[in-house]
């Protein structure tokens, strides 16, 4: 066989390859990987798990909304919030900012400020104590809302860390609303979709990083209603870690108290942590984050999201977290802030 036939072979196989990509994209991955169909669903996207998709579009139907730093016009601020994706509408869908529930339920002015890369939110708050930012804004409450995994990292922060405004300005802000890069119908996600969905038959994580375990009850309103998708703790926090983080939060709370500001710390319960009691034959260790933190002395207000949401789960409430996401949904935000008083 000469070069001519091998060239035809190549071109034929290339056409098949392109056609296969087009089919997978149109039938499955376009839904998972692009924003065109629905927002949110980071776990379904990372694990390529089609049956767990919870279709949603971003919308807000609450009476009062929070403002961002760009919209800040010098008005009185009741609550200033800062945090990770939980505090930045990471899940998408209905009322995707918990700040809007704080604003509506309490008739508060709520300002959400961005997180900076290479700085954790507690360190940022500590910096704002020193650089005059809080003296200018004068909020009554500062609420730090972060995933409990990031909260554990506060153990390693330096509560006295201080930098001037010029240096602080060099830190870039995280953009949680950045649009996903546009994809064409040929992309490596098509292959990952095929591979992961085959490997999930033999492995609960398919080397995708997203774990998939059966639940004892149907806790979600999607086709995979009794399946939990979650990310594992790389290193579950130890008692020492939790004590250390509590010390650091206390120190920052004292700095804020000296300015007449109350610190509210809201570690957002990890999805696995909340649902771990409902997993069938759960082989993974449980987190002691909330159980340990609850017992420690605090000079800040603590929102025990695990206790509040676990109670709702016991009542059989569905979709507290989105089935396809690491983040909780609007139901969780509503329940939590109906249970929290800012008096």
């Amino acid at each position, binding site marked *: *066989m*000469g*070069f*001519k*036939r*091998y*060239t035809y*072979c*190549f071109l034929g*196989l*290339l056409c098949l*390859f*392109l056609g296969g*990509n087009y089919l997978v994209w149109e039938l499955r991955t376009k839904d998972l*990987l692009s924003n065109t169909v629905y927002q949110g669903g*980071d776990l379904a*996207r*990372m694990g390529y798990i089609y049956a767990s998709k919870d279709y949603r579009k971003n919308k807000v139907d609450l009476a009062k909304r929070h403002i961002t730093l760009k919209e800040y016009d010098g008005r009185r601020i009741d609550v200033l919030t800062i945090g*990770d*994706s939980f505090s930045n509408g*990471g899940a998408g869908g209905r009322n995707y900012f918990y700040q809007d529930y704080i604003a509506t339920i309490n008739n508060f002015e709520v300002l959400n400020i961005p997180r900076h890369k*290479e700085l954790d939110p507690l360190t940022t708050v500590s910096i704002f104590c020193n650089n005059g930012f809080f003296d200018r804004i004068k909020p009554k409450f500062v609420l730090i809302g972060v*995933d409990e*995994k*990031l909260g554990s990292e506060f153990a390693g922060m330096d509560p006295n860390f201080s930098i001037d405004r010029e240096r602080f300005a*060099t*830190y870039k802000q*995280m953009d*949680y609303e*950045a649009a*996903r*890069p546009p*994809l*064409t119908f*040929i*992309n*490596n*996600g*098509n*292959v*990952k979709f095929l591979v992961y969905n085959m490997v999930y038959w033999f492995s609960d994580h398919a080397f995708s*990083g997203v774990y998939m375990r059966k639940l004892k009850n149907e806790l979600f309103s999607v086709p995979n209603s009794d399946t939990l998708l979650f*990310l594992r703790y790389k290193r579950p926090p130890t008692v020492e870690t939790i004590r250390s983080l509590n010390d650091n939060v206390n120190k920052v709370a004292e700095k804020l108290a000296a300015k007449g500001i109350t610190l509210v710390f809201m570690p957002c319960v990890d999805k696995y942590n909340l649902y771990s009691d409902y997993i069938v034959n759960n082989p993974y260790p449980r987190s002691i984050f909330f159980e340990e933190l609850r017992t420690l002395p605090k000079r800040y207000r603590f929102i025990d999201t695990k206790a509040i949401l676990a109670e709702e789960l016991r009542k059989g409430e569905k979709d507290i977290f989105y089935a396809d996401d*690491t983040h909780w949904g609007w139901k969780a935000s509503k329940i939590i802030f109906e249970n929290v008083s800012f008096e």
Partner: protein
Amino acid sequence: MLFNSFEFILFFLPLTVVVYFLLLRRHLTIAARSWLLFASLCFYSWWNVRYLPLILGSILFNYTVGGLLAEYDAGVKRGVSKKSIFLCGIVANIALLCWFKYMDFFIGTANGLLGTQLPFLKIVLPLGISFFTITQIAFLVDAYEGLVEERNLLNYALFVTFFPHLLAGPILHHSEMMPQFERLRNKVLNWKNLYLGLTLFFLGLFKKVVLADTFSAWASAGFDTTQPLSLVPAWLTSLSYTFQLYFDFSGYSDMAVGVGWMFNIRLPINFNSPYKATGMIDFWKRWHITLTNFITTYLYTPILRAMGRITFTNSLVAIFLAMLISGFWHGAGWNFIIWGGMHGAGLVVNHAWKKKKYKMPAWLGWLITFNFVNVSFVFFRAKSLAGGGQILAGMAGLNGVVLHKSLEKFSLLRDAGVTFGKWLDAIKGNDETWITAVVALVIVVSLKNSMEIVSRVRASWGWLALLLVASFWSLLDMSKVSEFLYFQF
């Protein structure tokens, strides 16, 4: 349009090849060349059609100057000397390049030195202007010396704009390319050339989108960070860029040569495993070979001639000056001039060493050369001299040493002042970063390069499998999914 775009691979390239050979099959040679010229201008305009008049004007001007120079050789007398016309042509080309590429650099330098407040022009650099300008400067020099003559505007325009080499080389001589369009056997579709061209194209694409783009993420993170880098991330930043640049540029050159083959046109080879070089002279014989030839012929030789006497010392001065200019050609900034100066100095030392007939083990020569090149590329990539200095400070260990937590148990390291923790976070790296850098080093030092691989390709299933893997993998990676956009805990 870029080679690594779907519109090029799936539409432009197949359409251009098919129509070109269909026209040739009907013996419509001029129509085929016109088609190729039209396709090349579309290829150029895809980025920004506003610059089409610029390249067309440049072609017309240089064609006219070339024609005038040729008329002198034919004995036609004019009011101005041949040399004046030649100099006018060269100055106009350099002025064009200066306007688009260097004006803001000159303004910035003037503001810095004289304390003036001249506003920057912020001119957008037209795609490929450096390449199509020096290609035409070379043509004018050759025409002035009577080595080349082109009286056909279509042929000349095709020589300048032929899309495989238009944007980033290889830098061509008229005499290398245009006779190939005339050869009868090149006017027929050659299946072997097409197959080998496809193989080389996709190997190049693989180098670009799979290898270079992988390193690009770490290099960008390292060069863009505002925080001082410790020892390991600083080295991985510089190595990532060194590998990125090689895989990117040599991949692009492979794609250009591969596309040329599809049209039965042999473009010159641009890279020959440069990171295997055991000295700076050796390096420049392997790195961007067509530029080295250009520098030697059109910079080094005229500078040496201008010095009057050809001595060893004068030749070293000429080498240094030629490399300094070459650095400036690469980019409008002091960091590029320093990069050129470093390579000039490296070549001078290498020539002096060679003349003294000193010996050095090959491995030591490689080690010195590779590290010298790696350090010099820090200036090539850095946004400013200060930025480059910050990376070099990190590489020298001035910002401390942070290693992975798993090494904390070694008291020797602790005693030496090493700290442990998030060692590669500053460059958004992980274990994959250093493993990939080691693998890349092994690839560039010990494996055959893509041209050597393609020279062994036969019509067999094994080689077809290689082509399929390279092409499918590259096409998939051209549109990469970022699943972890929100995964930033």
